[in-house]
């Protein structure tokens, strides 16, 4: 059996006691095998964590009430389609504005900060709850929980970033912008530097301030991060 198959079975707790002893001894004696194992373990973790988030979104969608279709609904649908067509044709013949660009480019930021740890009983349970609410799109509760956490437990910059993300979902632009500006100025949340500039530029688009948006986009590109790099360039072209 190839080595990666053994690694997989080890991580899934499927090795026999004998196989386990054999693998442990190999990992102790052979640094390159140890390195391979760690690389396999990390990749598997990344995949499981990512799949978990996608699965939770799927389960969440199952809870949404089924749409009932009636004759009235169909008439409403036809009327709505006509209105949509009229609106689209109107939009098609006029230049796009900054606020439209917001809708085009905005998407919620995934929870990559506390995606997987499940120590409910630890002191982080407030934070855990906040991220749960964020993941399940209950943004009002999430914003309150993030705020509580930041006031009572820790002023972690990354948590502040997610607080801002929740506020953006609630369309509280001023508060969200304030938090992102604080993060920018304090140099906090280094891992989210590009993200901070990206969302800050979107808020400026929403506030119909394209020159400020452009400034944030340029700063984003200066970070050298690959996050939204293509979109930032595109947006800059549209704004110029």
């Amino acid at each position: 059996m190839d080595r990666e198959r053994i690694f997989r079975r080890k991580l899934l707790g499927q090795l026999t006691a004998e196989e386990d002893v054999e693998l442990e001894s190999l990992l102790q004696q052979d640094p390159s095998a140890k390195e391979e194992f760690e690389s396999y373990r990390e990749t598997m973790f990344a995949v499981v964590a990512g799949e978990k988030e996608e699965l939770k979104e799927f389960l969440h969608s199952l809870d949404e009430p089924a749409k009932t279709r009636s004759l009235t609904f169909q008439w409403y649908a036809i009327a709505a389609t006509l209105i949509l067509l009229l609106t689209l044709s109107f939009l098609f013949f006029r230049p796009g504005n900054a606020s439209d660009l917001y809708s085009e480019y905005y998407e919620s930021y995934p929870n990559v900060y506390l995606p997987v740890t499940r120590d409910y009983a630890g002191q982080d349970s407030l934070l855990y709850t906040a991220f749960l609410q964020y993941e399940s799109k209950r943004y009002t509760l999430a914003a309150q929980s993030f705020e509580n956490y930041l006031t009572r437990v820790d002023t972690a910059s990354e948590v502040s970033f997610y607080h801002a993300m929740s506020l953006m979902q609630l369309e509280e632009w001023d508060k969200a912008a304030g938090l992102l500006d604080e993060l920018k100025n304090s140099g906090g949340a280094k891992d989210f530097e590009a993200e901070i500039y990206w969302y800050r530029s979107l808020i400026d688009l929403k506030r119909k301030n394209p020159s400020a948006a452009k400034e944030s986009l340029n700063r984003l590109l200066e970070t050298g991060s690959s996050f939204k790099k293509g979109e930032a360039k595109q947006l800059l072209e549209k704004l110029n």
Partner: protein
Amino acid sequence: MVRNEEELQQRLRNNDRQALREVYLRYKGDFLNFFRSKGSQGVDLEDIYHESVVVLHQNFVMKQLQLEKASIKSYLFAIGKNKVLQVFKGIQRLDFTDSVEEIPHAQDLLDQGDMTEERKRKLAYGYKMLGAKCRELLNLYYYRGFTIKEMVASTSYKDENTVKSYKSRCMKKLKELTRVQNG
């Protein structure tokens, strides 16, 4: 074992979303009522249910779990019990006496105790930032446990070498995205 139960297990092992949907909807009400009746008020039981279904899915798909004595329902409830106990650890006692079976191997596969939280975050972030094709390939190999040969059969890649080469590019990309920055 009831035939329907056997079929459902097989579909879960095959990563059939419709089967997962059936399980999710079939047991949700009983699950919430059961844990409510055991004094689990004040816990986000809806979320515990989501978490439990995810663990069930991981175990069926990744470990190709075969339940011989227990049913899917009792397995799901056993996972739920562990989750609820985690929430209440050291807070209060819950009465589960003989009401839920103890089933091994129902742990969350993401409980990698010795990995730092920062590293976990970085890895989760890296995977999300990959393109859809890379995620698909890595999913088949690391999540579903396909061999390279099986990956060729279930994708449009023309042969094993092509799959290997794409997979290696995706791994490289993931490594770049999750690189530990010094200084």
